[in-house]
């Protein structure tokens, strides 16, 4: 795995030199701990006097508490205390999930526990603190609550009707947020169009299903007035800030530690009532408390995502050039907007990203987001992308069919050309450094569509419905302060890195980016070793601890390499310069004649060098040997955020070949191809793994995953046996290739790669299925595309 994929970025120096690590698929040696069973997940942690929590959760989607009786439960063995909303509210201030930069959002105040009215099944109502989780669960069963059941508002499509149940009376109706984006003159565009195609797509609710459930250990130390949190989150500094604010603790006295995290995908970057209640319990009791969700709690309280119905219209001229696009999206977000990111962002991304690869002069997008009595919905991997890409690519395929073009031809006609960047999405969002043309050309070579067409005809004669499809897409990565900060959210778009030389010549790196398995530790090592000129085993990395790392946003929105990596690159170059300055004094030469290779300061023109070990020893232990005024800083910290644009976009092209069993309705994905452009790849293997894992999560959304509710708001499939996720046997091998267009916004040139797969796979699968069904003049428009939906589409049931 030591192949150099591409000489990617001249700004980083020649790849043909010692300690050239950026761009190489080095193994992620730090991961060995997981293969030895020595990871440090939250539930692995035991602290002295640790107690455990279990929650009483609302059994109803909408109900009022008439009375709570905890007397019997309080007497259960091992129970220390039972808290309800009024206890928790004494130590934890409520929150509101709205932001100011995207037009008016309306969501009520939320507290950790239900005060009077429960608004989704699973909402936490009371919390039992006991010596063991089993004891706490026993006592939960003995809590007696008298409920007044209320009619729930389940269906998002009726949420704004006159006779809808209004979930929050004070708001008057169930509207959370609406936004219209308009560029050009869409009405005129459709008049000019010779062909207009339309479709309406449904996307079911699904959820992240991290294999490790959400978990927290909160440890309030009264003597220091310090709150230490062990949390399997993605953004430790954000949590530190929020905990300080809502528990009225000085931020310096809140420490958040996020070590190993068993999958996150956006699920673990939000503020959850049960976790805030756990922190409250520790503060009230003065003891460390642990809460780890069980799988039922995960399904009913982890944020859900998608839940969209979108209609779209595309107008084209007779040559297939797109003149106008219009979309109208409706989404249901549960009863509250999540804090602090809000639940508006998925819809906002749909409005921003639809049509993004193409020149579309006239564009209109309307988004409407409503409340309903289901689990809250918020940002999950590839936020909004699956909807935006699917509606765009479904319409483009329909346009091609109507005009008589191949699906690749119509895309080529309409792409923003690779040499016409900077440019803008049809919605007006700035785009830079993209390569749709190059990516599609590469994809088509890999796929060999004429061969696939032949295969399809042969299969059809055998009664097998075979289909293939292609899509192009943009992925939002590396957000700038314009994403959240501009709206008033205290979510850092900046990340920091510190690097120091230690007395033995070892190098220590700390970064505000966190690790959930993407390989943050590995790429940080590669960047530091590469840019400093030391061997990989010299570097040790600390992540996920607000007491030990610089301030920063953490890991979300595919920002680790592009933002955190750039911060470390800058810090490393500063450290290198400091080292060379000291070396120039010791070696009595000028700094320009020196470099660092293989842990040695070397003279470029030959001659004796000095090891970093010796240099560090001189500075740290024998400073008297250096002239007065020598800068002894063998440590450097740098920060970075993206300036001038809202996001650094990447692009991908994807293709899929699949076949459909007409008797069972089962879809089998035979081949899946991806060409993506994330700029500099620090570790190509790890990029590939992000793409593949992302694609499979996207296949889940496209074919299997759905949070099924009955008409009373009861989730019907809240177990891993009933909620279907992709398992190994059904998944294809995925072929990945790249185009490399470095981002001009940083020296490192890296963009993000974490979400394209999840964003694009649902669209290409739907296009391929509809390609297969085209010969029957049938189509599917609702995800997940279950066997039942296919059988209904082809008239078998």
């Amino acid at each position: 795995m030591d192949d150099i994929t591409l000489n990617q970025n001249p700004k980083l120096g020649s790849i043909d030199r010692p300690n050239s690590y950026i761009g190489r698929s080095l193994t992620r040696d730090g991961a060995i701990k997981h293969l030895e069973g020595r990871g440090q997940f939250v539930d692995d942690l035991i602290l002295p006097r640790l107690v455990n929590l279990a929650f009483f959760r609302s059994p109803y989607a909408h109900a009022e508490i008439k009375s709570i009786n905890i007397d019997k439960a309080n007497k259960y063995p091992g129970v220390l205390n039972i808290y309800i909303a009024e206890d928790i509210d004494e130590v934890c201030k409520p929150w509101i999930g709205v932001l100011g930069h995207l037009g008016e959002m309306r969501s009520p105040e939320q507290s950790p526990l239900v005060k009077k009215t429960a608004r989704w099944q699973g909402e936490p109502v009371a919390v039992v603190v006991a010596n063991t989780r089993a004891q706490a669960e026993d006592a939960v069963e003995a809590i007696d609550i008298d409920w007044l059941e209320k009619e729930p508002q389940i269906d998002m499509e009726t949420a704004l009707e006159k006779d809808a149940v209004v979930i929050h009376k004070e708001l008057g109706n169930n509207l959370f947020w609406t936004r219209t984006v308009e560029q050009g003159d869409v009405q005129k565009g459709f008049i000019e169009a010779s062909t207009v195609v339309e479709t309406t797509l449904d996307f079911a609710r699904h959820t992240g299903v991290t294999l490790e459930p959400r978990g927290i250990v909160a440890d309030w130390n009264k003597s220091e007035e310090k709150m230490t949190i062990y949390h399997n989150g993605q953004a430790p500094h954000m949590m530190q800030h929020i905990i300080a604010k809502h528990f009225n603790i000085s931020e310096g006295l809140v420490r958040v530690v996020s070590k190993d995290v068993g999958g996150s995908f956006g699920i673990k970057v939000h503020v959850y009532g049960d976790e805030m209640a756990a922190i409250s319990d520790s503060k009230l009791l003065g003891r460390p408390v642990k809460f780890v969700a069980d799988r039922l709690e995960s399904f009913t309280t982890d944020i859900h995502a998608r839940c969209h119905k979108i209609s779209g219209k595309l107008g084209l001229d007779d040559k297939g050039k797109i003149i106008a696009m219009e979309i109208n999206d409706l989404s249901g977000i549960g009863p509250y907007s999540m804090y602090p990111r809000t639940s508006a962002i998925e819809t906002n991304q749909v409005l921003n990203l639809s049509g993004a690869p193409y020149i579309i002069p006239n564009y209109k997008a309307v988004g409407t987001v409503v409340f309903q009595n289901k689990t809250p919905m918020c940002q999950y991997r590839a936020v909004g992308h699956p909807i935006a890409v699917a509606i765009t690519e479904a319409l483009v395929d329909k346009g091609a069919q109507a005009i008589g073009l191949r699906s690749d031809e119509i895309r080529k006609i309409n792409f923003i050309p690779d040499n016409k960047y900077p440019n803008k999405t049809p919605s007006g969002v700035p785009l830079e450094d993209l390569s749709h043309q190059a990516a599609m050309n590469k994809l088509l070579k890999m796929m060999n569509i004429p061969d696939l067409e032949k295969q399809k005809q042969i299969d059809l004669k055998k009664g097998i419905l075979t289909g293939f499809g292609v899509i192009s897409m943009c992925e939002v990565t590396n957000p700038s302060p314009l994403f959240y900060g501009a709206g008033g959210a205290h979510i850092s778009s900046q990340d920091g890195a510190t690097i120091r030389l230690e007395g033995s010549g070892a190098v220590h790196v700390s970064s505000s980016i966190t690790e959930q398995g993407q390989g943050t530790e590995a790429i940080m090592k590669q960047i530091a070793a590469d840019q400093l000129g030391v061997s990989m085993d010299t570097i040790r990395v600390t992540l996920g601890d607000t007491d030990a790392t610089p301030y920063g946003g953490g890991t979300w929105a595919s920002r680790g390499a592009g933002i955190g990596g750039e911060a470390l690159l800058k810090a490393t170059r500063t450290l290198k310069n400091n080292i060379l300055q000291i070396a120039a004094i010791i070696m009595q030469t000028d700094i320009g004649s020196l470099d660092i290779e293989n842990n040695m300061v070397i003279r470029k023109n030959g001659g004796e060098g000095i090891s970093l070990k010796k240099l560090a020893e001189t500075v740290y232990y024998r400073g008297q040997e250096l002239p007065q005024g020598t800068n002894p800083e063998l440590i450097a910290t740098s920060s970075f955020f993206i300036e001038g644009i809202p996001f650094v976009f990447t692009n991908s092209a994807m293709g899929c070949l699949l076949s459909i069993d007409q008797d069972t309705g089962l879809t089998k994905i035979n081949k899946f191809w991806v060409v993506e452009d994330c700029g500099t790849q620090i570790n190509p293997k790890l990029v590939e793994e992000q793409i593949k894992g992302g694609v499979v999560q996207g296949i889940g959304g496209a074919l299997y995953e759905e949070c099924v509710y009955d008409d009373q708001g009861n989730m019907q499939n809240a177990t891993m046996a009933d909620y279907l996720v992709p398992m190994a046997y059904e998944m294809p091998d995925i072929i990945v290739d790249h185009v490399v267009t470095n981002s001009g916004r940083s020296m490192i040139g890296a963009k993000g790669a974490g979400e394209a797969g999840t964003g694009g796979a649902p669209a290409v699968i739907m296009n391929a299925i509809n390609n297969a069904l085209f010969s029957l003049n049938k189509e599917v428009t609702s995800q997940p595309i279950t066997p039942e939906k296919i059988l209904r589409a082809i008239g078998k049931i």
Partner: protein
Amino acid sequence: MQGNKSIKINFTVNDEKFEDVMVSSRQHLGDYLRSVGLTGTHLGCEQGACGACTVEVDGKAVRSCLILSSQVNGSVIRTIEGLDDPVMKKVKKTFLKHNALQCGFCSSGMLMTTKEILNQKKHFNRDGIRKEISGNYCRCTGYQSIVDAIEESIATNMKDINNG
């Protein structure tokens, strides 16, 4: 709570004898192992669906969430912490080489299942491997790199067996 009793049992975990251990009659084996610090066994669903908690009991891969600790009296148990035989050491290196894990939460179960695959001393093609691990959930990798690692592990193991 009703019917919860303590039961005295003996068993072996990773070659260490656990003698006259009092276990709760309603505690599953996964919870017991974790309670004695063997936290490498992870609990993902506690209903036998995800495979993360797989351990070896008397030579067979078993969901530790589906067996009560009181059922392992006299048994020989092996967990992720005890996979240090030469074959599994190689397997771990191969997993690392192929980056056959991301977050690591499923890895213990995947390795335990891989051990059972290798114990069969059979050649499995990629589809066969996918079938064998279809009871182990991984949300991160998309499975391909895991299949790569197991494929290479089978080949290496068969070669080692043939070479005696």
